[in-house]
């Protein structure tokens, strides 16, 4: 189960700028604090793949880090399966923007991190190989992360996250820095994986196309302080294609416009 309830979530930081910006938006600045997230309300269903879009620096990552338990909210509450988030846990695994693989461990050792509780070595070994095969990294078990290409590192990290069997997977720009083809393939893999395991996936991206192709739902966050400016469920069948579905294509243009791009090409 991976149901998330977010109610009246606020996050503000102490203002460390000596010379505060000259805009006197009362929401942005309250005394010496800077608001990052403002009154966020979201209900995420079990098994939903939610894509978060928004301009850079808008607080998407902060929102995800709060859900993951790395940072406490300033106000409001975040509940996962009706229980408040108290800190990081193996139930909700965060996949980092830049590689979070331990570089001193081989791929197999990294994937095995989530399976430490298994006493039986044989069983653990089998499960590790299973997840490595799932992301098609068989043959690279004993390689160190730095010996892998960027795309392979992401896949290894995905395997490590899957091996824990978490209720929720949180991905912060999982495709950034990948070349075009690897990006496309990884995207496809995540969609297939989601169809297969049916876990709740939260995914931050800059890429509107990624969100449209992948998401069961798109949440768009506005600029500082961040509010939800659009929350939309996408019930288009998969595989999705802008050229074949005019409705999808229309939505795409609408999103581009919302994000400040006038002509989506």
């Amino acid at each position, binding site marked *: 189960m991976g149901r998330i309830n977010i109610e009246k979530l606020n996050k503000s930081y102490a203002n460390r700028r000596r010379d505060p910006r000259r805009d006197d938006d009362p929401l942005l600045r309250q005394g010496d604090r800077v608001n990052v997230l403002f009154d966020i309300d979201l209900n995420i269903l079990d098994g939903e793949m939610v894509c978060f879009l928004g301009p850079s620096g808008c607080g998407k990552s902060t929102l995800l880090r709060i859900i993951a338990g790395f940072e406490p909210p300033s106000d409001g509450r975040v509940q996962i399966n009706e229980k408040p988030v108290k800190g990081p846990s193996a139930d909700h695994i*965060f996949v980092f923007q830049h590689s979070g693989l331990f570089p*001193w*461990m081989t791929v197999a050792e990294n994937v095995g991190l989530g399976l430490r509780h298994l006493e039986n070595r044989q069983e653990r070994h089998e499960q590790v190989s299973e997840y490595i095969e799932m992301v098609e990294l068989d043959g690279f078990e004993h390689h160190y992360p730095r010996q892998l290409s960027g795309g392979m590192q992401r896949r290894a990290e995905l395997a490590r996250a899957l091996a824990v069997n978490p209720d929720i997977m949180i991905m912060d720009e999982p495709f950034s820095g990948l070349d075009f083809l690897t990006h496309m393939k990884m995207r496809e893999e995540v969609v297939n994986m989601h169809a297969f395991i049916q876990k709740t996936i939260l995914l931050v991206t800059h890429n509107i196309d990624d969100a449209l192709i992948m998401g069961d739902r798109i949440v768009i966050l506005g600029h500082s302080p961040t509010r939800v400016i659009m929350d939309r469920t996408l019930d288009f069948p998969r595989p999705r294609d802008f050229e074949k579905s005019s409705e999808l294509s229309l939505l795409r243009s609408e999103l581009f416009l919302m994000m400040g791009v006038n002509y989506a090409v």
Partner: protein
Amino acid sequence: MITKVRKIGAKKPHTHLMPFLGFFALLLAWDVLARFSGWSREVFPGPVVVLVSMGELLADGTLVRHTVASLFRVTVGFYLAVGLGIPMGIALGMMKNARSLINPLIQFLRPISPLAWIPLAMLWFGIGDPPAIFLIFLSSFFPLVVSTTIAVDGVNPTYFHVAANFNFSRTEIITRLVIPAIIPEVVTALRMTVTISWLVVVAAEMIAVQSGLGFLILDSRNALRMDYVMDGMIAIGLVGLTLDYLMRQLGALEAASWRKMTH
């Protein structure tokens, strides 16, 4: 003009001879200087004289005995420093509160040369191995604590998030994250400190003990045997070279070289 282009990384077949060439040039210069400086062989012995007297010292076992005595002190003092300094560095690196308490003390004690401790060391530990070992300990302990603390501090914070995400226990954070992450830096620090402690042992032996290479040099000076003094110096250099070589081998271990590992 034609410039020969050689493939980068391709070693010339005779590259491994280069260090020997350096030593040979040094010997040659030394010999020339000794012959033409006008000083007597008692004051400035040439390489041949020194080599012959080294044969004497090797034959009666003196040189080996003194070298072993020095090595013993370095080993004990260095291991003590490693055994206490690295855990302390890890603790200071992980506990920010303890650091603000202890770090100023360390920074205060660190610049005091171990040699300044000689009078106190002799008073507290008497004559013999203990004061020398204490001085070696001091010389390596502080650098090791400081380098280890800095190394722990430099561990990518993402890894601690990952550890929390995978429900690491406190022990696991140390054994599976912090220690493997800092090994490359710690190996470098060990390489530096073993040289420092080898420097210090010779100085310590000139005061507090009746054995060791430092004592050999001091004793030979009193006997006006400059050739023996030079034998002692050569032995110190050779042992230093060996220690550095051994430490470098440590750096080649798989655990220490993950940082360099690419394709």
